[in-house]
């Protein structure tokens, strides 16, 4: 307690010297424990006693103990407000406009000096804040880092909506600042472990569109929020205070989405959004929280370049798609008599698709003169014969997809033994789960735990999965993506004497997926696996194999049928055949029938059937 009072006393002395208002300690403390002051300092209750700030940057605090003492920081701010106005842009009032406004209102400070805050004013006027839009670049499964999606805010000026000039707005983004280049793996690790500081940045929104829609092929969702112009202004004021200020950045919790929720609370202190995310803040969940708080008035869907290309090419026949690839490779084909013989309306579609294909292919590449020339010639052709406007249906809003965590309860039998299985999954979605709001053929699971209770009250850990990612992206005439998967954790496999053994394993694979008819996806991947099997002679048993199957979207839900085959270097051959049909009972409820047959040299083939209830919550 003394520690907290000491700076206060010193602060009070200074205050006297600078003629800021005299306040009783109790009054000061009461003010410093107001929610809004704590929001402005990004304070959270510390584990032991008192407070600590999420901000990890001494420059943000005016008091030496500012990071842990809201009261000391308040006193120091109060003193600073009365500093010599000749300090100009360095004056506390110029550096902390949100604090200044709040203290001025709370304490009715009518005698504050008026420094000239030119820098802040021109910055603020340039943004001209009026309305706030929450932007959610959808998950993009081919890049594990972006699987969970991301959120940022867009600040619109008063005429943005009416004049259709979204491209002139600013995007407010919170992300890790990477100063020097580490190699990829170190980079990924540091990103997850908090090795990079997080900072806010303000960029033209069109740059963010380019980044997400073109380079990463992620759809953008734009949620118009019903914050008033005053609330938006209050938030932007505070953003200025966070300029160049470093936060800790952690991938799972203290991430972009969490920070943006804090800003929304600054805009509108009646909101209590961050409290809902004590452990993890998955961007889609934060969008859901914003939706539930009643903030969303309108949603705009901005499809990625890849989705536009696929939609544009969708009505084309195989023969026409051939023309698309030929045109994209050589624009001289435009003069080919056979091409010119095609109906001009079809030509319009073909040319447009070819143009989109070239742009797609050159995405992320250095500018290539030949490709640029081809693009230009196709644009000229499009100009002569423009296609009808491309219309793309809006998919299910991501926040209307199932919730991120899952409880599971299954009843089943393995050979002749009945069992109950209790399961929990921390995140997020597997191939057979309720599909609305998710892409078909994408899976990302973190922290799966399954415990079985066999008849006779025999308990057994069935599975402890750390991570399992599957990205099955179909190939077609235009796009030839890879499909891949990776998983690690503990799982039960066949052992000697008909016992099932729990083995730590790591496996992965790469291959192709196809889309022979709509709603059906087939896949085949070559796989590698390494595990530690207690019945094997060696410590680590490697295997090579393959995994193939099909995923069918039917009236009930998804059906997944697949076979896995592992050929171990120690001679063991392990195969399995699995079938699951998921039945979507409601947004957050599903029922799944699972059947599998397992073969191994180590034991007799075993059959298992179970019925599993899956409840998605939180």
């Amino acid at each position: 307690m003394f520690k907290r009072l000491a700076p206060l006393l010193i602060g009070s002395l200074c205050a006297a010297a600078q003629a800021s208002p005299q306040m009783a300690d109790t009054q000061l403390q009461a003010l410093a424990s107001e929610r809004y002051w704590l929001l402005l300092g990004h304070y959270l209750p510390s584990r032991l006693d008192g407070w600590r700030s999420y901000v990890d940057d001494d420059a943000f605090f005016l008091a030496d103990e500012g990071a842990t003492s809201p009261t000391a920081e308040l006193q120091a701010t109060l003193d600073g407000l009365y500093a010599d106005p000749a300090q100009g842009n360095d004056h506390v009032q110029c550096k902390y406009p949100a604090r200044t406004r709040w203290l001025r209102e709370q304490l009715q400070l009518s005698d504050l000096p008026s420094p000239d805050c030119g820098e802040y004013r021109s910055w603020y006027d340039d943004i001209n804040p009026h309305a706030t839009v929450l932007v959610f670049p959808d998950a993009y499964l081919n890049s594990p880092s972006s699987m969970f999606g991301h959120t940022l805010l867009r600040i619109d000026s008063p005429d943005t909506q009416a004049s259709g000039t979204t491209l002139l707005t600013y995007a407010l983004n919170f992300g890790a600042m990477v100063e020097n280049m580490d190699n990829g793996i170190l980079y990924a690790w540091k990103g997850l472990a908090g090795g990079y500081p997080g900072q806010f940045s303000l960029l033209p929104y069109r740059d963010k569109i380019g980044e997400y829609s073109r380079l990463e092929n992620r759809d953008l969702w734009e949620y118009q929020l019903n914050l008033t112009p005053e609330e938006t202004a209050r938030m932007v004021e505070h953003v200025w205070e966070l300029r160049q200020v470093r936060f800790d950045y952690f991938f799972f919790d203290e991430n972009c989405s969490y920070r943006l929720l804090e800003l929304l609370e600054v805009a509108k202190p009646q909101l209590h959004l961050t409290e809902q995310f004590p452990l993890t803040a998955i961007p889609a969940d934060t969008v859901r929280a914003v939706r539930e708080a009643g903030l969303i008035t309108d949603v705009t869907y901005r499809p990625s370049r890849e989705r536009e290309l696929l939609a544009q090419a969708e009505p084309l026949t195989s023969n026409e798609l051939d023309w698309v690839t030929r045109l994209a490779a050589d624009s001289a084909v435009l003069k080919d008599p056979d091409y010119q013989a095609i109906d001009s309306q079809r030509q319009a579609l073909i040319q447009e698709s070819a143009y989109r294909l070239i742009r797609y292919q050159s995405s992320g590449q250095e500018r290539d003169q030949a490709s640029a020339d081809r693009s230009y010639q196709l644009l000229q052709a499009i100009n002569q014969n423009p296609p009808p406007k491309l219309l793309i249906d809006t998919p299910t809003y991501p926040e209307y997809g199932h919730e991120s965590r899952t409880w599971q309860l299954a009843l089943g039998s393995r050979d002749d033994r009945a069992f109950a299985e209790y399961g929990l999954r921390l995140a997020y979605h597997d191939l057979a789960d309720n599909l609305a709001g998710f892409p078909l053929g994408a899976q990302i699971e973190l922290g799966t735990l399954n415990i079985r209770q066999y008849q006779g009250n025999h308990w057994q850990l069935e599975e402890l999965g750390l991570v399992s990612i599957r990205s099955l992206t179909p190939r077609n005439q235009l796009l030839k993506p890879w499909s891949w998967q990776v998983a690690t954790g503990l799982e039960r496999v066949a052992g000697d004497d008909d016992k099932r053994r729990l083995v730590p394993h790591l496996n992965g694979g790469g291959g192709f997926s196809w889309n022979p008819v709509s709603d059906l996806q087939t896949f085949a991947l070559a796989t590698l696996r390494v595990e530690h099997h207690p019945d094997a002679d060696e410590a680590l048993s490697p295997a090579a194999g393959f995994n193939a199957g099909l995923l069918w979207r039917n009236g009930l839900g998804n059906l997944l049928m697949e076979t896995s085959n592992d050929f171990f270097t120690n001679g063991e051959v392990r195969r399995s055949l699995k079938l699951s049909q998921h039945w979507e009972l409601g947004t957050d409820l599903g029922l799944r029938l699972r059947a599998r047959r397992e073969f191994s040299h180590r034991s007799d083939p075993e059959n298992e059937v179970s019925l599993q209830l899956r409840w998605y919550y939180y």
Partner: protein
Amino acid sequence: MKRILLGTVLAAASINAFAAAPGGPSCGWGNMLFEGQSGLPSHLVASITNGTSGNATFGMTSGTNGCDTGGKLTYAGKPMLVLGSIMNELSEDVARGEGEALTTYAVVLGVQPEDRAHFNAVTHAHFNDIFTSADVTAEQVHEATLNLMRQDAVLAKYAA
């Protein structure tokens, strides 16, 4: 996985390129169709941590994202580097006759709502005059647009 690693390598290259990127029309991200915008191959480092690279960018006035903030044409105080960064989209929209980038361009040029359909039609009809090659720069596009507008009875008042 290959894609990811490649992305990282490209990102590494682009950071360095970025630091040295000159201002004006060369400012901006992404793969560029037009010569005037060449320079930045970039799959952003961003993907994992949604981060930004190099200097923290904080809006135009205090921004240090390699963009030259000086420019002749401004809209509501925003320099004309807007054009440089939407050139690709603009060329597509002019070719097709409509779109968000074309609307933005009309607004930046001060074309009033009642004349925007006409602006779209005129630029669409003169795609080849505005975008004369794949090597055209933002300044040339701007200049050609103004010339076109001066010759049009309705649009001339915006190009004085």
